Structures are given as C-alpha cells and as structure tokens.
C-alpha cells in the first residue's frame, strides 16, 4: 500500500494515499469542487478550468485535478478569488453555449447545468458570441449537436484511447477550436462504428443517442399495433442507477411492471433470444471445427464490432459468425412464428427493444434485417437512458413498483442467456452448449472462470477429451485491433473468439446510464453472474421454450428456415462514397 499523507482542505484534515490529486482528496472527503473535463476513468485534461483552488504559499490559483496532494498542504476551495475565477470561467463557457435547457435532452442530468445551478449564476456578463451551427443527425444512432459542446475533450479521449478509432478530433485552434470530424459534417460519412461511447461520457447534450421515444409512444397509442418489447440483459442491472440505486442492483421485476404500465402489450426477454443465438452459434462453431471451416470463428452479437470489421477489416469477414444478434433473432421470430401464432399481420406487430447500446439502432435499420424484405424486424430501439426517461415522463414511481414476470414463451431464459450482457459471457454461454455438442457428454463444471473479468484480453483452453481448443475474449475496439493484428499475422491459433465493442461488454455500452466507470462496470458484471447462478437451468440448449420453438417451427439448428431467419450476411463497407 502507498504511503498516506495528510493535508488540509477547507480547515478539514484529510488523509489520502500519496500520489492522488487534490480533487480526488476533496471528492473522498465530500468537499465539493466543480469540474467538467475531469472523468474518473480518463486522463487529466485540465482544460475546463473549473476546479481552480487556492493553495497557501502558491502565487496563482491551480487546477485541483492536475495538482498532486502534498503533505501539509493548506487548500481553500471557497475563497473569494476562487469563487471569482470560477464565475468568470462559467460565464465564458455560457457565452458560447446553446442553453435552451428546458428543451434539452439532458434535462436533469446535465453536468454543466448542475455546476451553474450550484454556483448561482443567473446571467453571463459577456456578450454571447454563440451562433447556431448545423446538427449532425443523419445516422440512426447518434446525434451530435456542436452548439452544446463545451470542448472538454472526453469524447475525443474515449474514441482514441478506448476504442482506438480517433474519429473525433480537435479541429482548428484557439477560440475557433471545435470537436469535429474530417471534411463532411456527418458521422455517417466516415467510418464511425456508432458505439456511442462518446455519448456516455459527454457532460452535456453535445453527443446523445437519437431519440426514438416518440416513435414508441405513437405505436403504443395506435390501436392497430400490437406492441411488444424485449429487454436486454445488461439493462436490468444498470437502469436502477438512473433512479438513484447503487450500481449492480437487479431490477428485472420493476422493469417488467413499468413496461406494462407504459402500455406495452407483451413484455419479453432478450435473454431468450440470447439462448437461441447460443444454440445456433455453438452449432456453427461445432460444424466449423468438425468440417474444417474457417477458424477462428468470431462472435457477431455486438453491432459496433460488426460495423468496425465491415468498415476497417472487411477481408476478415469470413471469420465472423453468420448468426444475427439476439436482438435481431428476436425480431425475426416475432415477425414470423409469433405473428402466425397471434394470427396478426407482421406489419401490425411493433417490436421495441431496450438495449444498452446505440449501435443497435443502426443494426435495426439495416437492409438485411427485414424478414419479409419490406418491414424492419425491430421497429424501434431504446437505450437504457431513453427507457428511464420514458418512465420519468410517465411519472411512474419506479422504485416502489411491484415485481412482475416476463410473459411466456419468450420470457423464459437460462443463466447462459443472462451473462450475454458482460464480457466473456457469450463465450462462456457458448462453451456450455458447444462442449456438450462436441463431446456428447454432460458438462459438470459449467463455470469458465478464465474468461470472466475486466481484463482486456483473456484466453482459455477447453479440454474436449480427444482434443483441446483455445479460445480468446476481448472487449473494446482497441483490444479487438490486437486480435485483428494476430489474425493477419497468422498468430491467432484460437477456435473461437468473442469480441465486444464496448469496454466490459454490453454493461458498459454507449447507451447505458452515465458514470460508466470501472468499479460501476464490475458491480454490474457481478450482478449478472449472481443472476446466472440463481437460475435453475444454466445451459441455453436446455431452455424448454427453445426446444419447443425448434420442434414447432425451426426444426433444427441451421435448418433452411433457421438460416433464412436467424443468419445474415456482411458487406465490405471500407470505402464510403467521397463527400
């Protein structure tokens, strides 16, 4: 353990590890210092200048986020000069900000508004030099409103250091500096994967998910439409945070009840579709291993990852599993099998999915994702944040709701489907089924601990009796790049690779509640594994409703109808048309 040091902030003695910053010391002691560019899981930028403080013996004010705490320092966070400096900084920020707060999508969780409220600023003394610039809203996933940007640089860092894409960059210099993209104004013109990580770190509403709430309300209020909804595994352990619960709180029951209150006709579970994905995907792997197909096989459930490989490394697409993601498998089954059972036309069934992801919005809009060739299988995708907003719009007292249960038949799921929401989960779920397919024996110890955890690159060896297979798990596109390089250099001797676009898997997705930090992600992951352990059935192929679905409709994995509905194709999208 590091040496502890003692310093004084606002007359309070604080003991903290050596090497921590003054801001961290203050946060630990619950002393308020405003900040906008600081983010616990990012590097120090010190560009918003809001966390200025006064240190005895220093001639100037310093930024507390970038100054290390030293023994016996005497710090003031509320002195006159600090207050004045803070006020000027904020007023300058506001003089170039589109502060239409009442109609802004961030409403109650805008970091800038919180700081302005706390500092009691009513007006900016500076002449506003704000001019409205066009909004980037041409893609189905993300809206970029540069008018709201405060140039903190969090989005640039996450795009560069976590995802390794560096799509967003600082353009121009001095007061003309803007966060931007090359040439064309729109994210749809360049090789953006729509992972939405930028939107989950943005302190204001400069980058947000595309709002589809109204589309859903319209469908709910349309008597012709039968509106059904599926909820992704990662949502249930994170949405509580939007209502003040601690990270990792499982609120599945409340989600179901709130969805019923909102007016959805039936509430289903994406975990069911995840089980279906596992059966199809494991069978594909089994076939590839047995028949000498292209190995390693790579998972295909993360739409951000699919966008990445299609746009950056299309030559490796044959490695990607042809299985659709659980969201799309659910949509395809809903618009065919379910519609037959219900005796309703597919176009009168409106399928909503609640996802931790912004790229899912893009996935749902793809041409390949229309079972009948006309209507999309998934009609609307809401992120976790949008869903929480919908609950708040309806004045539902979420925390005091009774627990409800998912509807049958698509509400029953196994533990394997549940852990789809975190890194290593798809791998573990697939191995549970693949092992039994390959060996014909029952798997005794179903916990594959090697593939769990937040390590960026995980490996494991699975003993199949007569042979051993190597598997790998990566998350975040920066780590995906490592696997891609290994593949290109023929160093990847794996049979199966799981890739998740976002750090931590879906629980760290771009549509998740704000404060997507490492400790929060770990808690969400732990909660999913608890859910898995609590399930009676923990292997996807043993899900009785999946067995029934195959018996009544799909016949067997990779049957003609399964191939038509549950599998897809990918395209080379490396060269976008020149703008």
């Amino acid at each position, binding site marked *: 353990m590091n040496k502890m040091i003692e310093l004084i902030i606002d007359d309070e003695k604080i003991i903290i590890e050596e090497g921590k910053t003054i801001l961290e010391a203050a946060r630990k002691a619950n002393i308020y210092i405003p900040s906008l560019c600081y983010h616990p899981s990012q590097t120090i930028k010190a560009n918003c200048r809001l966390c200025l403080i006064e240190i005895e013996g220093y001639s100037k004010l310093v930024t507390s986020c970038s100054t290390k705490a030293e023994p016996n320092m005497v710090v003031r966070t509320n002195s006159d000069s600090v207050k004045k400096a803070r006020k000027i900084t904020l007023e300058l920020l506001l003089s170039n900000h589109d502060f239409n707060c009442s109609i802004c999508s961030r409403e109650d969780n805008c970091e800038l508004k919180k700081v302005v409220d706390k500092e009691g600023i009513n007006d900016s003394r500076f002449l506003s030099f704000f001019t409205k610039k066009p909004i980037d809203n041409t893609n189905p996933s993300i809206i970029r409103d540069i008018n709201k940007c405060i140039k903190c640089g969090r989005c640039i860092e996450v795009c560069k250091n976590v995802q390794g894409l560096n799509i*967003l*960059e600082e353009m121009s210099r001095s007061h003309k500096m803007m966060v931007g*993209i*090359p040439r064309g104004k729109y994210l749809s013109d360049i090789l953006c994967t729509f992972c939405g990580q930028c939107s989950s770190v943005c302190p204001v509403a400069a980058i947000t998910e595309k709002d589809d709430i109204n589309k859903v309300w319209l469908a709910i209020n349309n008597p012709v439409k039968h509106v059904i909804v599926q909820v992704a595994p990662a949502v249930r352990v994170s949405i509580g945070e939007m209502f003040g619960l601690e990270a990792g709180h499982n609120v599945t029951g409340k989600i179901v009840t709130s969805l019923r209150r909102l007016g959805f006709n039936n509430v289903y579970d994406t975990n069911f579709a995840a089980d279906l994905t596992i059966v199809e995907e494991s069978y594909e792997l089994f076939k590839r291993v047995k028949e000498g197909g292209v190995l390693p096989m790579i998972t295909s459930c993360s739409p951000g990852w699919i966008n990445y490989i299609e746009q950056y490394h299309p030559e490796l697409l044959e490695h990607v599993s042809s299985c659709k993601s659980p969201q799309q498998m659910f949509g395809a089954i809903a618009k065919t099998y379910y519609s037959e059972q219900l005796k309703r036309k597919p176009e009168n069934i409106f399928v909503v999915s609640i996802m931790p992801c912004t790229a899912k919005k893009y996935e749902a809009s793809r041409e390949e994702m229309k079972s009948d060739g006309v209507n999309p299988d998934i009609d609307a995708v809401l992120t976790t944040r949008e869903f929480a907003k919908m609950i708040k719009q309806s004045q539902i007292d979420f925390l005091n709701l009774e627990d409800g249960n998912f509807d049958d038949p698509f509400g029953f799921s196994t533990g394997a489907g549940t852990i789809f929401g975190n890194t290593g989960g798809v791998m573990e779920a697939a191995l549970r089924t693949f092992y039994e397919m390959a060996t014909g024996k029952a798997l005794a110890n179903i916990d594959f601990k090697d593939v769990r955890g937040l390590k960026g690159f995980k490996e494991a060896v699975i003993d199949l009796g007569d042979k051993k297979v190597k598997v790998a798990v990566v998350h975040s596109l920066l780590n995906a790049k490592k696997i891609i390089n290994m593949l290109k250099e023929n160093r990847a001797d794996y049979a199966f690779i799981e890739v998740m676009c976002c750090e931590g898997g879906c629980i760290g997705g771009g549509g998740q509640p704000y404060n997507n930090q490492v400790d929060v992600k770990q808690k969400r992951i732990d909660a999913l594994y608890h859910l898995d352990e609590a399930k009676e059935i923990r292997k996807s192929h043993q899900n009785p409703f999946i067995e029934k679905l195959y018996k009544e409709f799909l016949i067997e994995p990779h049957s003609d109808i399964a191939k038509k509905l549950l599998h897809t194709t990918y395209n080379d999208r490396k060269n976008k048309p020149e703008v």
Partner: protein
Amino acid sequence: MDIKKIIEEKGKKPENAIQILKEVQKINNYKYLSSPQIKIIADELGLSESKIVSLLSFYTLITEKYRGKYVIQICTNVSCYVNGSNNIVKEFEKELGIKMGETTSDGLFTLEYTSCIGCCNIAPAIRIGNKKFGELTPQKIQAIISKCRENL
C-alpha cells in the same frame, strides 16, 4: 515525388507527420493536401484521418483547403494588431474582392490569417510564399498585388 517514398524518407512514424505533410504539400505547389493524399498518409502512419485533418487545421503552413497561387498570410498577433493589421486586411479584401479565408475566382490569391511570423520589428507584416512584407500601410497594398500579378 511519390507520397510513399516521402514517408519512407522522413521515417514511417506518427511523430514525423508534420514534416511529411509539408513535403507532400510541395507536390501540389505548396497549396493544399487532397483527401486521397490525406488518406494515404493516415493509413501509412497508422493514424486516423481525423488526426491528420486536425493537424492540418492547427498549423497555417499546411492545409486541406484549396488555395490560390499566392497565399497572402496576415499576422494576427499583438504587434501587428496594434500597428493596424485590421486595416491591411480590409484593404486586401477591397482590392481582391474576396473575404478573409477565400480564394479569388481566377485562382491567383488566397487571404489567410497566420500566427506570429517573427516580424514584430516591421509590424504590421504579411507573408506571401517565402517572402515577407513589413511596415505596411493600406497605400502599399496595391503595389504588392500588382507585383504578384507581374510575376505570372
């Protein structure tokens, strides 16, 4: 010269990006870098296109915007500013019939701002290509423009 050859020569490392960009711009007569050129440089150096465009937008010596034969760069820093660089800008805009940042329709002149060019002793100063002109007044501008035209 071939772009890839320039990159080999300067060293295929991200930290050499600015030198490479300057050299490649020479291919286009010091005017600008085209988007295919930017794409090649980005791919070769393992940087994103955004990063390269960001560099181009930061430095005034390199640009991705098409510029005229004569790029008139007017210093905006303090010494030039207090010595009336604003009037110089106005005069140029009037004489050339274009606004700051634009290029004349005959493709001859582009007006640009630049940061300090180290000519504070002869402020207000401008730079056209490698030549510097100092101690300017609005009256001297027409002469500079006709001198450029004569050089055709």
